[in-house]
């Protein structure tokens, strides 16, 4: 496969740096994944948007910066305004300086790019001396292809190392806390949903209990009302009976009083009649009796007195 590509590439005018392409490809994949996960996280928890988006931008800058570094360090430099730079080979130090001065840089990625540029410069300087040795190797087929596309082992190794460092750093300081936060958030959401289900169930159960208690209270209230009515009726009947008894007693007493009064009235009438009879008799006798009658009565009285 590689010999075929080595023969086709010059004819097709395909040039470039495979290492740079792979690095940029990785950076693009990283940025894409970061964007995908960011959108997913914001969609799941819009309230945490303020924390998710800055972190996503930082991580995207890191990934993008690495790709851009790869472009300017490993690949053919075609978009930078440095015509004095020979094609196929870009000094690391000049690349770094040009890149730092590039007006197209994103301002908020400036600090991250400085950090990775410094790291990459140190690593590049360490393997600088091996670059000339690698160019001198004229191998057949694959080696020529690799040399044509600028794939040099030392630089690829350096890229892998720097990528590993970057990945480890991103993972340790960015991805891992983010994943932990997302997991925690997911757990809280799931716990909340579970609690919500449990709360809904408990609410339904509580409502059922409330309805049952209301029914029981209604029944009890009806019983109490009925009992109160019964007691009131009994009390009213009892009071009515007592009142009737008192009334009967009063009636009896009144009748007795009336009878006594009647008797007294009759006695008074009888006495008055007797008195009147006596007075009348006295008056009549005082007028009717003569001395002869009186003398006869006196003799009768004398006989009575002497015979006692």
């Amino acid at each position, binding site marked *: 496969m590689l010999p075929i590509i080595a023969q086709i590439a010059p004819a097709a005018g395909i040039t470039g740096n495979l290492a740079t392409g792979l690095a940029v490809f990785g950076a693009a994949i990283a940025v894409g994944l970061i964007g995908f996960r960011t959108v997913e996280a914001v969609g799941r928890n819009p309230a945490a948007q303020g924390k998710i988006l800055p972190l996503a931008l930082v991580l995207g800058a890191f990934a993008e910066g690495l790709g851009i570094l790869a472009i300017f360090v490993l690949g053919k430099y075609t978009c930078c305004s440095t015509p004095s730079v020979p094609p196929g080979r870009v000094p690391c130090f000049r690349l770094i300086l040009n890149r730092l001065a590039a007006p197209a840089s994103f301002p908020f990625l400036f600090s991250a790019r400085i950090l990775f540029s410094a790291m990459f410069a140190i690593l590049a300087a360490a393997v600088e001396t091996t670059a000339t040795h690698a160019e001198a190797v004229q191998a057949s087929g694959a080696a020529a292809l690799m040399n044509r596309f600028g794939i040099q082992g030392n630089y690829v190794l350096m890229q892998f190392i720097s990528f590993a460092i970057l990945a480890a750093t991103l993972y340790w300081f960015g991805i891992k806390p983010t994943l932990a936060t997302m997991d925690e958030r997911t757990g809280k959401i799931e716990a909340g949903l579970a609690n919500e289900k449990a709360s809904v169930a408990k609410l339904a159960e509580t409502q059922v209990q409330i309805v049952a208690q209301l029914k029981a209270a209604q029944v009890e209230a009806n019983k109490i009302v009925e009992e109160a009515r019964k007691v009131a009726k009994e009390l009213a009947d009892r009071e009515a009976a007592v009142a009737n008894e008192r009334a009967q007693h009063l009636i009896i007493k009144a009748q007795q009083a009336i009878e006594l009064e009647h008797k007294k009235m009759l006695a008074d009438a*009888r*006495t008055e*009649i*007797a*008195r009147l*009879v*006596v007075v009348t*008799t*006295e008056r009549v*006798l*005082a007028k009717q*009796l003569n*001395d002869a*009658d*009186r*003398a006869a*009565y*006196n*003799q*009768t*009285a*004398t006989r*009575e*007195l*002497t015979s*006692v």
Partner: protein
Amino acid sequence: MAAVSAKIRTYVKQLVQLSLDNGAVSAERVAGVLEYLDKTPPARPQAVLLAYRKLIAEEIAKGEARIEHAGPVTSEALAAIAASLAQRYGRPVAAVATPNAKLLAGLRVRIGDDVYESSVSGQLAALAAAC
């Protein structure tokens, strides 16, 4: 007499017994008792004399029968009533007739504290009291 002591009452009764003659109050005997009391006055002479007078009046009243009558009454009737009362009380009784038209008819004899009713008004009063 309620305030008079029992001693005075007993003493006066003895004086009254001394003043009777055959059950009747004798004037001479009463004079003698009074003379005695005058000579030997008791401890409480006024109380004794008042008690003595009261008892003597009762004795005199016992010896006199007041016969109230309405209409004419014969002396024989009066004498018969007096004799009957003397026999009953065991002492001589003098009858004193007193007319009383309120009796309408009949007699009412009063001797001491005893009253014998046999008059029309008395019977009518008894009838009225019974009614």
